[in-house]
């Protein structure tokens, strides 16, 4: 998927800066060209649900803004200057130096520079995120791994029931803040102590220090974060549960909670009691609106098409198929999963439900997506669940459209969540709101 790309839906490894911004009181320091950080802020945080700067993002991000001089003579002195300044000017608990194309290409030894500061006791780490090295999903992992390798110390003892969660990407997932809060509530509902690490009230540096003390890690993600969990297993021997489906709606969420409960050796009665309560809530509303689903379905979109990363395309497909009984069209996966995960994903879509499967295309090139869909015939208006790029396409194929993935410029997103029981209801409201809103 390294072909040329029209209408990008993911960016470069330096996008990891947004994961730093998402850690409470953490300060990113970008050792790159003058515009990199701002472009990534605008692509991931602003023109993506208008999530905004937050505490130390946007224009507050310290950067070396490397120029001709740094390219020709190297940028290490410049970097030192900026770090010195940052330590004085920026009020933060953790500093993460991220390198961009310029620094990595001219071969600045950023690692050494940063380690010198660390030796002096400064809470600072370095992530080598030169843009050409991969996408920002990888960037997110690089940042986490950098903190783990360069900053964390083994814990004296394991805290039972403490779990670290590695799931949706801050800012890349427009609904990350709400989703992570939802995941926390779900796991707390089982009686676990949840280390959510990113976003409001996640504890900042103290939470990260607790990572090695966790009883286990949960990777609630098709692939992103697996490498983090593996690293933690190597360094601290922490076991991990990899659960690939983003849980949306009752069926999926209950499935997830059961396997989490099992992995954590929780009393199944305790797990079931919680699940029962949540399902009662969820199905009360599905029941109440059943009239609508059945009376309107004769003409509402029979077929849905996801154009989003593997988190959403898989999570939403399973939800719409297994809960609302909708019919999947072709599914597009845009986050460029590593080779080893592809078969697993294809298989997931092949077995969405008994008798129900979906074709998958891995691409993040709007041109290819458009070409593929234009060549298909739809007996009824399909539902296109994707990004703001896809509005035109949806129109062209006579379908309905909802933006749920980067970039989102037609919605403002605050604490909305699509994960969990309530998240499922929210998604249903939004999907049919988008449909009904057209007339």
């Amino acid at each position, binding site marked *: 998927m390294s072909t040329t790309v029209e209408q990008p839906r993911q960016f470069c490894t330096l996008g990891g800066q947004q994961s730093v911004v998402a850690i409470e009181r953490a300060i990113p320091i970008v050792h790159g060209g003058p515009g990199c950080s701002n472009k990534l802020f605008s692509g991931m945080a602003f023109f993506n649900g208008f999530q905004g700067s937050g505490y130390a993002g946007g224009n507050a991000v310290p950067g070396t803004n490397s120029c001709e001089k740094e390219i020709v003579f190297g940028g290490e002195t410049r970097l030192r200057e900026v770090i010195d300044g940052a330590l004085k000017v920026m009020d933060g608990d953790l500093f993460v130096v991220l390198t961009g194309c310029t620094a990595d290409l001219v071969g600045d030894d950023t690692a050494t520079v940063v380690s010198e500061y660390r030796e002096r006791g400064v809470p600072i780490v370095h992530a080598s995120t030169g843009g050409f090295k991969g996408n920002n999903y990888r960037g997110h992992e690089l940042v986490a791994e950098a903190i783990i390798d360069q900053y964390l110390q083994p814990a004296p003892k394991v805290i039972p029931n403490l779990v670290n969660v590695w799931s949706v990407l801050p800012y890349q997932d427009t609904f990350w803040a709400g989703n992570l809060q939802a995941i926390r509530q779900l796991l707390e509902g089982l009686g676990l102590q949840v280390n959510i690490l990113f976003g409001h009230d996640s504890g900042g540096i103290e939470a990260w220090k607790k990572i090695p003390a966790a009883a286990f890690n949960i990777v609630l993600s098709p692939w992103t974060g697996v490498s983090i969990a593996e690293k933690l297993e190597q360094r601290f021997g922490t076991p991990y549960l990899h659960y690939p489906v983003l849980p949306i709606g009752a*069926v999926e969420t209950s499935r997830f909670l059961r396997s989490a409960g099992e992995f954590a050796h929780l009393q199944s009665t305790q797990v079931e009691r919680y699940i029962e309560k949540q399902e009662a809530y969820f199905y009360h509303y599905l029941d109440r609106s*059943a009239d609508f689903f*059945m*009376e309107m*379905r*004769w003409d509402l979109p029979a077929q849905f098409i996801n154009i989003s990363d593997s988190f959403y395309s898989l999570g939403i497909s399973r939800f719409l198929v297994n809960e609302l*009984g909708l019919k999947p069209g072709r599914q597009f996966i845009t986050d460029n999963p590593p080779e080893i995960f592809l078969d697993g994903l294809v298989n997931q879509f092949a077995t969405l439900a008994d008798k129900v499967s979906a074709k998958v295309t891995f691409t993040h090139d709007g041109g290819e997506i458009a070409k593929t869909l234009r060549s298909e015939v739809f007996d009824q208006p399909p539902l296109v669940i994707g990004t703001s790029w896809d509005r035109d396409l949806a129109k062209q194929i006579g379908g309905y459209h909802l933006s749920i993935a980067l970039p989102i410029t037609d919605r403002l997103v605050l604490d909305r969540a699509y994960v969990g029981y309530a998240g499922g209801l929210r998604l249903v409201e939004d999907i049919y709101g988008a449909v009904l809103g057209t*007339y």
Partner: protein
Amino acid sequence: MALVNLANSNIQTREQRLGSIIAYEGTAADLGQRSREGRLHDRTRSFTQVSSCASDCSICLLSLIQDAAVVNHAPLGCAADFSMFNLTNRYGQFKRGITPANAHLVSSNLTETDTIFGGIAKLEQAVRDARERFNPKAIFVTASCASAITGEDIDAASDALEIELGIPVVAVHCEGFRSKVWTTGFDVAYHAILRKIVKPPQTKHPEIVNIITFWGDDVFTELFSRLGLVANLIVPFANIERISRLSESGATVQMCSTLGTYLAAGLESLYGVPEVKAPPPYGLAGTDAWLRALGRVTHKETEVEELIASEHEAIAPELAELRKELKDLTGYVAAGSVHGHSLASVLRELGLNVAGSCFWHHDPKFDNQDPAADSLQHVVKTYGDFPVSICNKQSYEVVNQLRRFKPDVFIVRHPGMAVWGGKLGIPTFLVEDEHFGLAYRGLLRFGHKIADAVNNPSFYQHLAKHTRLPYTDWWLRQGSTAFLGAEE
């Protein structure tokens, strides 16, 4: 007595005119025979649940006439379905490429004082306002239980306002309590149209065919153009001018005689516009017969035969596929009389068995008095007998039957009923577009719809698993007719 009496603003209810009933349990064959032999008697339910009323049916037709306005002379609650008609209007406009806009609906908002001192003044105000706000080509004044019981003279008021405003102002006597058969509301609405909108023919347009429909997609224009005929869908989304010239058309057809019986027969008896008398165009046999009857009336026999042949051939392979896929499935149909017969035909044509059915009412005959139009008889003759019950949307009876018949799929044509199939875990859908299964291609559309529903029943399964029915175990053990009284 002549069917249509233009001098009288009111008409007889279906009970009086056609001997219609709302309670029966037996088989299609028996029901048809009793009807033909005049041995059909209604039965009263001692227990009932909410149904619909004539006002509903009248307003839904009239409010979709694009340049008319409807004034509902009633307490505000009778306007509760305005928002539904409004969505039907906006959605229909959207599908027809018209910019969606609100329906022209006003309520005179009768209150306690009005019930004592009379509300005619408010009605007049409402009609004047409607004129000023929408500048309509006609205004329909629909009655209500309250206005009728307090004896409001809406006829006098309407006639006076008609002179004052210089546009037709038509009283529509659709008060809910007058008829237990809500489709009387269609007749009343059409009577209003015949009385004050339709004009005697200036010229004749033999090629134009009136098609009495609801709001379904236009599947006719293309079909008819291949016969050299022009489809004229009425009355929803038509305008007053077009409706005023219905008398000039070459023929009138309907997709459902329950809907159009009065208008079709009225146009024939008043202006000699021949009504095409045939079973409705659903299922192969029905469509063939319907087209041939149309061909005879419009002298297009040869074109019709060509059309039939080519369409049969065009759908044959896909139809065979579908029949294979749907083989051995059983269906249950719940719909308004004749359209219910049509849905039964479609199911049988697709190879499903009709395990049971429930029609909201039954007309033993139609206003045209012609057995050729006997849709029930047609189904029985073509596809064989099947269980039938007549029940005016009593969900407790339907639930009871569904649990007994356990169909694989539940097909409904009326809001509020579908959910009960779902709550029992039965794949269910509502056919809001009455043309969905119409003619040859409709069979295929419909077949795929059923396949989709049965191939992924997850929604219904979850619903059934997590919902509770509001009925006692006692009731669910009874026969569904337990509350039917003796024949009257």
